[in-house]
Every structure is written in structure tokens, then in C-alpha cells.
């Protein structure tokens, strides 16, 4: 029964697109950490010089990123099962009225959590090897895998158990779940950053930094994406030795993960006591008469409040929940702790958030959703696209607002470039989805877009957001024009067959 539950849970999640979005994001993040020798930036620098990584040090770096990333995203991904099931569209009622014990149900979920995270870790390991191999002299895959597994596996065991605890404790609340995940992430990162405290660093996030500090021999070493001269000299080579202390610490961490899961399994209250959530928010219905007025007619302008309320309804449909809190908090923390370059993070928000939000919009486009109703309320096909672009653009810009303010204060052109990039990717994502009738091409386009910006040799003409160099006014103008052209093309196109049929 437990294995059957685990298999069903795992199948359900493996066939969910959002699973692969999370995996893709983590892989792109890992790719960013390994710039080539001639790159315009470095992730580890010692007084303006590069630090060369051995196979084991590369593995430690990849593991650190995966653990840090998964300690929020992975945790949230594996902790929403009860929330999902207790909605009217969920299977909570079938589960709670089945003779299966709570222990069996939850044990199956824990196994599914573990398998899912382990699968992510394995795929990330393979791809990290593919990325790192050409960039490390005398690459040793065995050493790489050993260090990677040592750091990643115990962390994933902890996260799988923590996901179960989160489910049990925050069963109905997404906001509390997200908030708690961020607080725990902050604690984990803080502990990892304390010199000498890595012995109580169960997620293994601080292990690499500890080794880096030891290898620096007093030389100031920075960990984070920083500009670097293309022909910068090498400060030193970094290795990551496996010590008995490290092995013992990681075994203890894995056992702690099992103990956390057992705690949830034993302490779980009756499944039957879970509430069935009221899932459907009241749908905004526009019952005012529509006219064939031109977009800029006085009648149309007089209805601006109506337009605003339609855009607000679109944003509500995305069911953002705790996402803004999570993204904003991560952005602020990421910047404060210096893990990522501000511009890169802002670009991630501005491009990847629409991707994630697209997933939510897809949910409303199912036969059980409200999208077909919304579609019938639009006076014209073009309105459908316009609302999506407005809503997604507004949401992603709002999420990145702290960075836009920061960027505008330092360099207005830079902020303008970020906004242009946002307009372009939001338009592209929605337009492709609209025309194709499927969200997948839009997701792929957005993902490829973001990955393009992580290339080390990005031509300045394309680098509209100034990730690797200062943005140019010509590039910004070109992006805005391209976005408007895509929007115009989508507005005159036909809605896709899949959407129409749903």
C-alpha cells in the first residue's frame, strides 16, 4: 500500500510540467556557477583573480547551489500534497474515506518526496558533470560524484522529511508554508555562513565556503557572481578533500532527515480531520454592455475602471498565494547575502516569474477552469491577449520592484533595459501560448531566453538588461519594438485549438 501510494504520487508529479520548470531553473543556476576561464564574470574571486576548481571542488559548488535552491523550491515542491488534496478538485475525500492508515498514506508521500528529490539530484549531477568536464583540467568523475553525493543526499533526505512536516503543520495554508520555508532557509544560510559552524550545517550549504576560506590562506575570497577581466590571472587552485569529520557529519544529517520524517508520521493527526478547502474564488463577471468602440474612443477611456478590474481579475486568477513573498524574500536575501549578482537575479525574476505564472494560468484553462468563461467575456480576441500580457507584466514587474528601484537609482538605462526585457518575454510567452493553444512552447521560449542570458559570451547587442555589460539604448528600443510587434501579431492571430476546445 505504501509503495502504491509512493508510485502514484511520483507519477503524478513527474508528469507535472511545473516539476520540470523547477528542475530546469536549478540546472540553469548550476550552469551559471561555472563560467569559462575567459568569461566576463567569476563566481569565486580572490582580489580580482580567478580561483581554479578541481573536480571535487566543482562538485561541492554544484551541490551547494542545489542544496541552497532546493531548501526552498524543493521543500515547497514536496510539501503541497495535502493542500492540493483537500481542495474540491483534489482527492482528499477519497483518501480520507479509504481504509488506508494515515501512516501508510504519509509514508508513501515521504517515499515519493525522496524519489523525486533524488531524481532531481541525479539529473543535476549528470548535467553538472557535462558542464564542468570541459572546464576542469584532469577532470575526475568519480571524485566529482563522491563529493556531490556526500553533500546532496543527506540534504535531500532532510528536505523530503521536512516536506512531510510542512504538510502536517501547515496543511491548509500556502502563505505560512512559504513564510516558514524562507525563515528556515534564512536560518540555514546564516548558520552556514558562520565561520567554524559548518559542523551543524545539515543542508551542507556552508561546506564549500568553509573549504574556500581554509584554502584562501588569508587572501580575501568572494563567493558570488562578480565582474572579472577576461585575462585575469589565477590566484590559487581549490580542492575539496573528503575527511572523516565530513563523512560523519553527513551521516548524522541523513539520520536527522529520517528522524524528521518519523516525527511527522507519528505525530500526524487524523487525515479525516482535514478541512476541505473552498478553492474557487468568486469570479469577476463583467455584465456591462460592450460596444464596438475603437480602443481609444471616449467611451473606451471612460471605462478604464472596468479595464483595471479585468486586469485585477486576471491577477487573481493566477492565485499568487505566497509566491510574491517567496520571490521577494529570496531576492532581498540573495542580494544581502551576496550570493548572486543583483542584475542576474532581477532578470531571473522578470523572465522566470512569467513562466511560473503561466503554469497557473494553464490551470484555469482546463475544462474545470474558468478560462473558457473569461474568454467569452472578452469583446474581442485581442483583449484576451492584452489582459494576459498586462497581468503577467504587472505581476512580474511588481515582484522585481525592489531591484528596479535599485537599478534606476544607479543607472536609469539599466532599469529601462530590465523593463524592456520583461515586456519582451511576457509578450513572447503569452503570444506563443495564445497562438499555439498550449503553454508548453511559451514555457520553452521563456526558459531558453533566460538561459541565453546566462551565456558567458552574450553579445552586448542582445544583452538588453546589462547582465554582462552596460545595456545600450538601441538594444532597449529594439526589444520594445520587437515586443510590440509580437503582441500585434498575436492579437491578430487565432486562438489555439487546444484553448478553444477546452
Amino acid at each position, binding site marked *: 500500500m505504501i509503495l502504491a501510494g509512493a508510485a*502514484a504520487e511520483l507519477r503524478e508529479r*513527474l508528469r507535472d510540467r511545473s516539476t520540470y520548470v523547477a528542475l530546469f531553473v536549478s540546472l540553469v543556476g548550476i550552469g551559471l556557477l561555472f563560467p569559462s576561464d575567459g568569461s566576463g564574470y567569476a563566481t569565486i574571486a580572490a582580489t580580482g583573480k580567478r580561483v581554479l576548481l578541481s573536480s571535487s571542488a566543482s562538485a561541492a559548488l554544484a551541490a551547494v547551489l542545489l542544496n541552497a535552491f532546493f531548501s526552498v523550491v524543493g521543500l515547497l515542491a514536496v510539501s503541497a500534497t495535502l493542500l492540493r488534496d483537500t481542495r474540491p478538485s483534489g482527492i482528499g*475525500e477519497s483518501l480520507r474515506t*479509504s*481504509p488506508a492508515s494515515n501512516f501508510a498514506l504519509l509514508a508513501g508521500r515521504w517515499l515519493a518526496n525522496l524519489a523525486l528529490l533524488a531524481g532531481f539530484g541525479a539529473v543535476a549531477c549528470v548535467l553538472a558533470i557535462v558542464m564542468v568536464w570541459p572546464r576542469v583540467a584532469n577532470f575526475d568523475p568519480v571524485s566529482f560524484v563522491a563529493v556531490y553525493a556526500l553533500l546532496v543526499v543527506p540534504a535531500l533526505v532532510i528536505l523530503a522529511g521536512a516536506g512531510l512536516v510542512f504538510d502536517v503543520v501547515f496543511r491548509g495554508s500556502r502563505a505560512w508554508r512559504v513564510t516558514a520555508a524562507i525563515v528556515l532557509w534564512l536560518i540555514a544560510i546564516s548558520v552556514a555562513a558562520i565561520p567554524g559552524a559548518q559542523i551543524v550545517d545539515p543542508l551542507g550549504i556552508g561546506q564549500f565556503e568553509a573549504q574556500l576560506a581554509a584554502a584562501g590562506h588569508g587572501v580575501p575570497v568572494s563567493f558570488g557572481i562578480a565582474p572579472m577581466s577576461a585575462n585575469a590571472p589565477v590566484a590559487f587552485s581549490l580542492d575539496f578533500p573528503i575527511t572523516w569529520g565530513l563523512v560523519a557529519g553527513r551521516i548524522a544529517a541523513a539520520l536527522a532527515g529520517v528522524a524528521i520524517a518519523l516525527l511527522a508520521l507519528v505525530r500526524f493527526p487524523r487525515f479525516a480531520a482535514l478541512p476541505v478547502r473552498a478553492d474557487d474564488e468568486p469570479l469577476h463577471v463583467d455584465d456591462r454592455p460592450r460596444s464596438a468602440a475603437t480602443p481609444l474612443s471616449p467611451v473606451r477611456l471612460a471605462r478604464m475602471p472596468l479595464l483595471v478590474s479585468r486586469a485585477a481579475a486576471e491577477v487573481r486568477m493566477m492565485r499568487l498565494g505566497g509566491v510574491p513573498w517567496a520571490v521577494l524574500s529570496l531576492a532581498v536575501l540573495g542580494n544581502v547575502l551576496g550570493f548572486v549578482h543583483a542584475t542576474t537575479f532581477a532578470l531571473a525574476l522578470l523572465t522566470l516569474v512569467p513562466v511560473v505564472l503561466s503554469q497557473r494560468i494553464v490551470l484555469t484553462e482546463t475544462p474545470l477552469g474558468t478560462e473558457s468563461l473569461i474568454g467569452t467575456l472578452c469583446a474581442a480576441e485581442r483583449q484576451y491577449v492584452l489582459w494576459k500580457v498586462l497581468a503577467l507584466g504587472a505581476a512580474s514587474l511588481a515582484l522585481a520592484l525592489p531591484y528596479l528601484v535599485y537599478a534606476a537609482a544607479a543607472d536609469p538605462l539599466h532599469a529601462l533595459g530590465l523593463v524592456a526585457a520583461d515586456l519582451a518575454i511576457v509578450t513572447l510567452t503569452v503570444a506563443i501560448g495564445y497562438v499555439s493553444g498550449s503553454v508548453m512552447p511559451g514555457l520553452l521560449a521563456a526558459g531558453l531566453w533566460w538561459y541565453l542570458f546566462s551565456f558567458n559570451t552574450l553579445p552586448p547587442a542582445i544583452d538588453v538588461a546589462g547582465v554582462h555589460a552596460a545595456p545600450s539604448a538601441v538594444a532597449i528600443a529594439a526589444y520594445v519594438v520587437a515586443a510590440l510587434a509580437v503582441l500585434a501579431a498575436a492579437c491578430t492571430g487565432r486562438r489555439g485549438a487546444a484553448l478553444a476546445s477546452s
Partner: protein
Amino acid sequence: MLQCTDLQVRFGNGVQALRGVTLRFDAGITGLVGRNGSGKSTLMKVIATSITPNGGSLAWNGEDAVRRPDVIRGVLGYVPQYFGVYQNLTAIEFLEYLAALRRIAPKAARARALELLDRLGLASAAKRRLGGFSGGMLRRVGIAAAFLGDPQLIVLDEPSVGLDQYERANFVALLEQYRDRTIVLGTHIFSDLAQTADALVFMDQGSVADSVTGLRAGAGVRRGEPVEAMCERFVMSGSPT
């Protein structure tokens, strides 16, 4: 035999959904009739142990099912009003999963799931993902889930909504096969009740307003009135007679 005694359910928002419902369900099909919000679904949720009542008792063959819901869960087949599914599983995978939760052996579960899907006209869709199913198809998957294993108590909340005449006939035929079990059928499709029900319970504002028994034997039909007309008049006027 299922015995409900003075069942009380009050929701968190203050709504009193059940007000002292006392009923006995014997083997056979008992139809629940009432307007929307009359307490039919709440009563069925209590019987299916999805909701714990605030007061009263529920007993299955004399055993207290409020304190020990497993006495019902082990024998229950249940189609809730909103039958949720894992959207990314196929119909056969989902039914196999639910069968595993009911402790049915994998081989037997697969055979039974395929048999039910075939019987309900879903054989060709067995390997399609549930996310692509229509509302009527999902209802049929729900019905199949309720009849997995060997349920002794079957609770069906609006099971035939969205089914066409042909599929409804299949459903009725399936019910006939299980007539020796205790079946609680809540529906607004009165022709289903006319064809199948042995007894009717009329509910209004969380209470039992009236009940009729011996329908199949003709004893309960008052003044020779058809069941459908009786149900319709109750819903429209609040009185079955």
C-alpha cells in the same frame, strides 16, 4: 445495516447542516431527495466518514463508526459530490492506486478496474490521462472507484450528473447488481430513483421531512403516484404528499 441517530453537523461558519437526523438504512437502495442545501451531501459525507458529526451517533452493524470510522471505511464505496482525481495519472493507474488503498491485490485490482471501465464505457480511455477527461467521464471513473473491491455500503452523491441516457442505463444496471448491499443514493435525477429506489428520504433544512419505504413492492407509492412526481413536488413545494 446503517443506523444514524440524532446526527448534528454545524460548520465553522455557523451553518447548521444537519439537525438531529435519525434514519435506518437497510439493504437496498435508499434515495435522498431535497433541494440544494437541504443537507443531503452533508449526511452522505457523515455516512462516508468524511465529516465527523458534532453530535449523535452512526453505527454500522451495531459498531460505533464515529469513534471507529474504519468499520465503515473497510466496506465503503463512495462517490463524493466533487470527485477529485490526480490529473496526470491515467484512468487505470488512478483506479489501481485507489484499489491499493483498499488493500486489493495488484492483479485483482487491475482486472477489476478494467472490468468496471469497460462496463461504464471507458475501456478505450483506460490509458488516457484523467486531466483530459470530460465531466461525464470523470463521474464514471468515480463510479468505478466506488465499486472497486466488494463494498457493502455504497454512498453515491450525484453519481449520474453529466451522464447521457446510455451511460445512465449502464449505471442503473450496475446498481441493480448490488441491490443486496446498503446503497445511499443522493440525486436530482428522479428517473434514476424511479428505476432503482426501494425507499426515499425527503430532506429539508438539515432534517428529515418525510420518508417512503417499500417502493419496489409498490407499498410506498401513495395514491398510485409515480416516484418522479412525488420527488418533484417535494422539491417544488416542500411536501411529497
